[in-house]
């Protein structure tokens, strides 16, 4: 088969002045694959994610995305118009803090419908119907459709953010600590939901997390980062059960036994 990966990253690097935030990162991401990026705070995980999702332009290397019409294209060489179009159709970004990804003052329905309207939906009833069906999919009460996210709990805001991103049927979703700041039981339910959605929709996902439990549950493949470099990558179970690099070993050993 001459299949191409959905995302091909080669020698990606990002400097902030003298600080090297991210150095020669290379990997391929295939459709339907969930890739986890783990590492301690300051290891360059979020910088990497921002470079991949074209929110930050890298100092070196390329990020190529398999577009629906034109094959693999370097994301950072696309026109801004095209980047922004990708951002609201083919891609989704789930932020750690729902405040960054939601319009807090607008109703849940408007939040979910925004992407549909951005690509030209002009029928109120259809948009609302779609928003309702997405509230069902993320297990939210239909009655909350006209409430603004600021009156929602953290877990519900995160669900809403997920619905808002998935409504445009993206192929690639970037998640930055999707369960950060949630209590354990809510986390578990959210992870369960995410796992279901990802497999149902065949999404490719890149999840940045410092929580190895999230990585274990959600991801197929894992990259361990330290000081801006990828020190180890492989299948999730393999990395977590048999870590090779000293830092990975330290990371796995640091999980608190309950």
């Amino acid at each position, binding site marked *: 088969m001459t299949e191409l990966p959905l995302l091909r990253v080669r020698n990606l690097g990002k400097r902030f002045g003298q600080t090297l935030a991210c150095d020669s990162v290379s990997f391929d991401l295939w459709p339907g694959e969930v890739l986890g990026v783990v590492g301690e705070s300051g290891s360059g995980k979020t910088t990497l994610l921002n470079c991949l999702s074209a929110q930050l332009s890298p100092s070196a290397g390329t990020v190529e995305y398999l577009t629906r019409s034109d094959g693999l294209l370097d994301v950072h060489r696309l026109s801004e118009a095209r980047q922004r179009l990708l951002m609201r159709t083919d891609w989704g970004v789930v932020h750690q803090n729902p405040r960054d990804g939601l319009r807090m003052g*607008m109703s849940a329905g*408007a939040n979910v419908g*925004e*992407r549909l309207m951005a690509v030209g939906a*002009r029928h*109120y009833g259809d*948009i609302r119907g779609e928003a309702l069906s997405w509230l069902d999919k993320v297990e939210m009460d239909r009655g909350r459709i006209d409430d603004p996210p600021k009156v929602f709990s953290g877990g519900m805001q995160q669900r809403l953010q997920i619905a808002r991103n998935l409504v445009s049927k993206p192929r690639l979703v970037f998640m930055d600590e999707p369960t950060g700041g949630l209590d354990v039981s809510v986390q578990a339910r959210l992870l369960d939901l995410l796992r279901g959605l990802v497999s149902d929709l065949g999404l490719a996902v890149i999840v940045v997390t410092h929580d190895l439990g999230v990585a274990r549950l959600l991801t197929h493949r894992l990259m361990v980062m330290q000081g801006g470099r990828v020190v180890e990558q492989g299948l999730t179970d393999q990395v977590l059960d048999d870590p090779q690099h000293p830092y990975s070993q330290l990371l796995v050993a640091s999980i608190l036994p309950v």
Partner: protein
Amino acid sequence: MNAAAIDAKVEAGYNFAYLDEQTKRMIRRTILKAVAVPGYQVPFGSREMPLPFGWGTGGIQVTAGIIGPDDTLKVIDQGADDTTNAVSIRAFFAKTAGVATTDHTGAASIIQTRHRVPETPLREGQVIVFQVPIPEPLRMLEPSEVETRKIHALEEYGVLQVSLYEDIARHGRIAWAYNYPVVVNERYVMSPSPIPKFDNPKLNRNPALQLYGAGREKRIYAVPPYTPVRSVDFEDHPFKIESWDQPCAICGSTASFLDEVITDDRGSRMYVCSDTDYCADRVAEPRSAADD
């Protein structure tokens, strides 16, 4: 009219139409660009005028840029020719440009307006100048000017639709009543200035040239004659104009925009045309009901 005759009519010490010639040229260049790109907000070097920002400095500058000695000027404020703002601006141009002024929509070659479009249909060759307080239609939805310009450039008007959605979800209908955004020539979203939405359909394919001036915000934009102008809406919640359940108490018109006037402190009220010229015209020579 020769130069000496014009000078004789203009207040001594002032250039024709108050502004200096270089400024007027700059304004005309801006207007040309605005006409070439309908609905696009063109920046210009707005000047200090002898009245405060918000009182029509943008409209006055546009009028000063295009007015000639043979023009006839009409100025309205909320549809009326005899309100302070309208009277002052009309007097200003009578003094500094020596032009003829009129109350009759049909007799004017330039109509400067705040908050209304005259009820009498405009014709080819007329110019209507709008005073605009906030030229950016997305200002209340997106505070960043950098971002709104990008939205216009890339035609990403989703956010506007989102606020319409929000209106319907909350009120069951689109609640905007004035300054109702329009799409000009199926490209730029434009603020029609704070005219009631009742007047929006009049902007569509109007034979007159529409110029919009915002003095404080330093923007001029335009809608050339016969340009399609569409009010934003949803397919299943189409744009609708206001209607009243009674005719004008003075002229009996059922087709014009009515003001509600409180007549005493016991709750009595009457509805009258906001366009005073149109109303007075109809009283002077009553027309058949078919005209309504």
